[in-house]
């Protein structure tokens, strides 16, 4: 009995650990293209060469480089002055399809951010 309990506990512990340590993986190919952030009302264009730019619909935005590590989308903005080289925005993706992407910012877990493919 004790042994079984120990085994089951170890099993659940392993399962918990496994659940706890594993992250979703998303295909970055699906990310390529132009997306519309409905929360911020902003366009994001992700190019295949990992460059991209934002656009507020009036031709204003920032250039950036992006990377997708499992579910973590890092957007590193290019500083026009050079003073802010390295300023980064991190989204944690929860869903990525060819037409829709859902995520939350790493510093605002309670706010859902939706991207629609354009």
């Amino acid at each position, binding site marked *: 009995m004790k042994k079984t309990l120990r085994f089951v506990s170890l099993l659940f512990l392993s399962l918990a650990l496994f659940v706890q340590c594993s992250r979703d993986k998303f295909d970055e190919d699906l990310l390529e293209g132009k997306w519309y952030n409905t929360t911020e009302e902003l366009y994001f264009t992700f190019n295949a060469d990992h460059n991209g730019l934002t656009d507020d619909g009036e031709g*204003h935005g920032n250039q950036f480089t992006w990377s997708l590590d499992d579910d973590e989308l890092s957007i590193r903005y290019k500083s*026009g002055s050079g003073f*802010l080289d390295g300023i*980064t925005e991190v989204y944690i993706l929860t869903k990525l399809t060819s037409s829709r992407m859902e995520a939350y910012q*790493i510093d605002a877990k309670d706010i859902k951010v939706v991207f629609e493919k354009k």
Partner: protein
Amino acid sequence: MKGTPVTKTLKITGISLLSVLGVLVLAFLILSWTILSPSRLTSTTRKVLDKYAPCPVMIDKVELTLVRTYPFLAFRIDGLFIPDEMESSPLDTLLSIEKFFVQADIDTLIHSNVIVVTSLDLNDTQVGLFTDESGRSNLDFLLSSDTVQTEETSSAGIPDLSVNLEKAGISRLKASYTDLSAGMSASVADFNASMKGRMEDGGIQAHARLYANDGLSFAMNDDTTDIKAVIKALSLELDGMMTDNGASGFLTLNVGDIQAAMDSMNAVLSSLKASTSVECGLGENGLTFANATGLTISAKDIMAAMTGMQANLAEFSVRADSMKYDPVAQTAGLSGTSIGLGKTGMCMTDSLGNSTEAAFESLLATLGADCNLEHGSLSEELTADIADISFSMDGESPIKAGLGNLGVVLNSNIDKDRIDASPSVRTDRLTFAMGNDTYVPGWPVSLSADVHTNPNLDHVRMPLTLNVNGQRLNLDADVDISNNMQDFRGYAGISAQSLDIERIISMIPDNFKELVKGISASGQLALNAGIRGSYINGEPKLKSASATVGLNRFSAGIADSLYVETPALTANVIYPSAAGTKSDGESADLNLVFGNLDFMYNGSQSEMDCHLSEVSVDARADGPVDSLDLMGLTAYATVKAGGISATVDTASVDMQGLMVDATISPNDGLPAMMLNLALSSLGGRLDDNEGNSVMDAGLGRTSATAMARYDQSQEDLLLKWNPRFSLQMDDSHVSVNDVTVELPQLDVDFSLGRFAVNDSRLVVDGSDISFWGDIYNIGAYVQKTGLLTGELFLESDHVDVNRLMAITSGIGVDDAAVQEAEIQATADSSALEPFLVPEGVDLTLYTNFSSIEFGDHEFFNLGGDVTVKDGTAVLKELGFSSDAAEMQLTAIYTAPRVDSMFMAMDFHLLDIQIDELIDLIPTVDSVAPMLKSFDGVAQFHFAIESFMKPDYTPIMSTMLGAAAVEGKDLVVMDNEVFDGIKHKLLMSRKARNVIDSLDVELQIIRNKVTLFPFKVSMDKYSAVIGGRHNLSGNLDCSYHVALVKTPLPIRLGVTVSGPLMDISEHPLKHIKLKRPEYKKLYEPEKRGNYEERVLQLKSNVLEMLRSNVREY
């Protein structure tokens, strides 16, 4: 005048008459020897007449006496009558003699061959001569044969006789002459004559007196002429002698009541008297001389009238001492001649009944003349004095004019080559009025001239002096005239030495006084002007001209509000320039000099007082006349003023030592202009109504030079003018209220190649700034062919920014206007035009300020570079130190176009007190409001960048920013409060209100501010604070405070979220208790991927900001 035919006729007639008388006397004496008795003589005579006379002749009695009357032979005819048998004649009598008597001395004739006629009388004689329309006369049967005989008798020779006519007389002769063919008639009603004379030795001496008591009449009336003349009484006395060598005599004429009429003209004269002595010489060739002396002519009550005109002359007299004529020498002379007229008047009346009258009271003229007919020369002297001349003319505007007493003097010399005349006219009182307006009230006027010309009138020189009411004007003309007086060439000038301006103004007629109402002026005006030119074929051409106007002790005022005064002023214009002229152009000089000039204006709302001293203006222009071609123009002007001062209400200006030089002339094929200005000092002051100074400004020694070359092929204004200037000013200042801005030194040079600021200095109320530098290639930059480059330097030992901001804030604008401008700017931000950083520019401004006061802070060693290049302005590493911190600032502003405006700032404050940080940069409080809870030393880093709208509002979708605050040993809440609560918080006794370290990083992406979690530890407590808020909208925020370490067995988390304003008003509504987040953040062994990532992002921000610090 050759008198040979006249004198010969007189001589022949006299000799003939006396010869005939002598023959008749002889004949009658012979007859008396044969027929002594009157009856027989009468009968015989009748028979002879009946037989031999060509017409019926009736005689009452013929008597011849000798013996009874010896030694006198007397012959007498009584009742001689010859009827007029011409049928067409209205007359009955051709000749009727009541008595003819002649008596001669026979004894003298026999012994001495001298005929002495003691008496010759013709009494009561009537003669009637008539010619009809066909020209037939009632004398046709008598005149022709007698005339031939008379001439033959005279030409056959005069008997060598002496005749002495002691007494001859004609009494009561009545004669009439009518010639219908010629329309003439004449008559005399009672003609009487008495004569005596002597003819001997070839000479004749005679005395005769003729008179008609009952008038003479003459009339002529044909198709073209209607003349009538009637003389009521006439007497003529002659006393003369004639020899072969000449004649002399004295003549006296008296005529009373002459009436004459011709067509519509008629004249009346009540009395005419004349007398003169005449002498003439006769030679082989005729008249050798003729003289008249003592000529007097006088007439009274003369009236002449014609349709619409009448003239009256009360008295007329002429007197000539001597009139001479020498036909041999061809000279004539007149001396001692005077003409006098009494009251004279003339009146003309037009068809409308308007009359024109002219009159004078008296006229006295003297005339002397000498003439040489051979040389064609004449010299004369004429003087005339006319008293009380008046003229009037009726009409819509009746004219009245008068000359009180007019004096005329005319001296002239005329010969075949020249005419010189010197007329002079003066009057003591000239009046002229038209309508109800008096134009000339009674001024003394004189005019004198000196005319020189020639008989051809092809050259005239005429200096003339005019004096009107004491104002003297000189005119001069020297003119060549040709082409039938249509072409003129020469000189004309006008000058006046000293015209009294006040008097001239008083001479303005009353009806024009309105034009100068309220205007007063006094002083002396001198004028000298002249022109030289020609007027040929209707084209005027000016060769030269000059004018000089001088004012002496001049003052003028208008309506007691405007006043000008100068002791002396001279203006001079010369054409062409004295310096010469271009061959195809014209030039002129202008010169104006005055010592002092005062100008005052006193208006209802303002007053002005201006004083100028030692002013001179010299100007010259030389260029083409036909066009405004700058290329051909050379001109210069120099203005000098010793001093100019002016006061306008409460403002005053004073300028000393001014000199301005301006020149325009061609240079390298382009018109070039240059201006030099030099000034010793310029000061201005503005006071308030209480006399306190509001503004005070001054320029010290100043010199400026400006040059330009005008190239019209260029489009840009700078390139078109290619300006160059240099300016040096010393000791200049402006003081407004308590603020003084000084320019102790300013030295700039500008050209399109280089703009240099040489060692200049500005002092503003305690702030002392030196500046210098160079900017190059301005012209190439404008042409877009080159880069505008340069370096400027600003240095200062001390700048008080607070004072500068206080000075410059709202200067010249009141508070209400400032507020309105701000409101307007906010409401209509689109109207603002952004500053675009120009491209093609590479400029750097180096700054070095030793000390700057700003707010309550003082900053030291502030310096940095501002670079403008390629459309970007960069404030590079502006650093300073203060008691509160050390600062480094770099800012970038890029604005090549309105739609591409970008601004970035990187700011660091090192070792700064947090409270001073917030005080220094209030924006920090809105970005990181929690900082104001702390006190202590920290490091502050801040960087932000964004594209901007034209109104400089950031485009939020492009904003990136980051800030970091590092602090150690930061005090939170004051000691007293902490001591009060630390026990309640179960803190140890040694607990202090100090946070060991503070490490705050935040990140701005677009309108989101992310405050990365930071830990705050105090004694037994630790809390982690983090969150985010929006910079737009309602400023929504969400902050979480997690109490991660407490002495209590609880872990608390508090989230404050919602709109910021709402949170401050209803805090409890937005505070929620939650599970504490960030627990694992500061427990490395418990950190997961999320925590690692967050800390990585947090560290990233700090490293990113630190890397921008210059020396860290």
